[in-house]
């Protein structure tokens, strides 16, 4: 069976800066791919190419083996691609539950079905084990971890078939991180969702991922099953890259 998501030869430039170059990736259904890399390596850019936010300058994206040209985030979403952005994409002025259903609002005729959205938001957050007592408060009032939980919840419960998580654990305490990792494990167990997760904590990444890829200066330099690598090796690879560059550019 074809991979749920395939990226072939993708490049992305911002003016003179090459953020991605000849990137190849694949994720199968029920598989979790960990994407690692330094700050500025191009991880978020790659996510934003796959979710339709950026147009790639070269390369192809295949969903279930069929090439797609993503016209917009909406278009990607209609193909089952959903994203938790690194910046979370929450609107401070809106309530928690409006944020959770932003651009996928439930409606009765032309009017928002606030009652339903409120109830579903409460249910989802409770199910996730996230502690947000009042979903009617403005998102501005939440803590960093709570905001992240909202952003994750809205994608996880979106019935996405390809889920892209850009550092979903960044602001999380140990307990909250476990909640999210468990959620990823549950989705994986369902067997029909392909997941890409970006993380800086290798131990956490290895815990849920089937495969790990490393992105360095816009290129994939490493792609191996979790069982064949370790935290120590990954750390070495990252630092070796840095040491190498330091030696190459003395002074």
């Amino acid at each position, binding site marked *: 069976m074809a991979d749920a998501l395939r990226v072939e030869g993708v490049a992305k430039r911002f003016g003179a800066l090459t953020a991605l170059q000849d990137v190849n990736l694949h994720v199968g259904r029920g598989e979790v791919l960990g994407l690692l890399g330094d700050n500025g390596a191009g991880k978020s850019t790659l996510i934003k190419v796959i979710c339709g*936010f950026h147009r790639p300058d070269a390369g192809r994206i295949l969903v279930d083996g069929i090439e797609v040209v993503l016209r917009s985030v909406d278009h990607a979403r209609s193909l089952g691609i959903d994203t938790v*952005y690194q910046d979370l*994409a929450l*609107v401070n*002025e*809106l309530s928690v539950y*409006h944020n959770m259903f*932003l651009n996928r609002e439930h409606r009765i005729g032309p009017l*928002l079905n606030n009652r339903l959205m409120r109830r579903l938001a409460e249910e989802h957050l409770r199910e996730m084990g996230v502690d947000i007592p009042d979903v009617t408060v403005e998102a501005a009032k939440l803590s960093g971890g709570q905001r992240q939980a909202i952003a994750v919840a809205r994608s996880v419960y979106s019935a996405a078939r390809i889920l892209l998580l850009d550092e979903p654990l960044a602001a999380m305490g140990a307990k909250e991180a476990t909640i999210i990792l468990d959620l990823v494990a549950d989705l994986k167990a369902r067997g029909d969702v392909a997941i890409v997760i970006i993380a800086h904590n290798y131990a956490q990444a290895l815990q849920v991922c089937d495969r790990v890829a490393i992105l360095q200066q816009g290129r994939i330099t490493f792609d191996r099953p979790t069982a064949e690598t370790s935290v120590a090796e990954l750390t070495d690879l990252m630092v070796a890259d840095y040491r190498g560059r330091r030696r190459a550019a003395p002074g």
Partner: protein
Amino acid sequence: MSVVVDKPRGPALARRAWTGFIRRREASVLVVAIALVVYFQASTPLFLTTDNLRNIAQATAPTAIVAVGIVFLLVSGEIDISVGMVAALAPYLMHYAIDFYGVPAVPAIVLALLIAAGIGLVNGLITTRLKVPSFVTTLGMFYLLYGILLTTSRAYPVAVPASAKGDVQTWLGAGDWASLSWCLLLVVFFHLVLTRTRWGLHTISVGGNILGATEAGIRVNRVKVGNFMLVSTLGAFAGLMEAFRINSIDPNIGGGTRITFTAIAAAVIGGTALAGGSGTVIGALLGMFVLAVLQNGFNLVGVSANPFFLIQGLAILVSMIANQYLSRLRRAGGS
């Protein structure tokens, strides 16, 4: 939520009512509106008479309708200072269509509204596609429309076309309470649009976090352009209403920038943030009411009209400071 809260009683209830009240953005302007009504009624028995209330209503309605559109545009993070000129131009567009091209009255009115929407479309496209700040786009549009208006009309007022008299004129502004009725209808309708529909939610999102809104897949440019079109159309409607009410088509309808600035002032006094992301249609109506009552009350009490602008300036500053203070309270207290 499973927490059981005991019913608040006495002071607790009052406190909750108070926090609930100040959490509403319209709170401060409502207090001011009531205070002004009480003050002027105490000063002169002429204030709360039917005739005077109609004066206030007629001074409030057209600008409040413009302010409704301004609220949407401000919430989406943009501004339109050309809308007053659209208000002045629209009655002429109707007049040209009827008197020069033989278009019947109602289609001519619809045509004027459509052209106004087109002006909003141009404002929106220049702002979103060509990335010209909306203040500058609409400043240019203001002078452009002013030039078109003066050259095509030769700056002469004209009579309301015969075919637009009668029922049309009565319903669209000449009737005693016509403009107020339209104003209230539009305020209620657009209050619902802003607070209860997808369009409102997306307008708030675009003004609150444009990157986040884009990432969520909202067509942010479409939302902005739509709101530019809304302001222009409402501006044209307000202009037509004024022409029908004063029974003359006059290049000075809207007073150049006056209707625009007053509408922005009303929106701001009513609790709409210039920075985008939050605002209220009802607040803008109350804000406009406050400004109209001030002017009217000063007249009645016999104070010269000159210090009015001084008061209006203070009202804007004081209400902005009060809103800052209240929003801090909202954030600290409440929920």
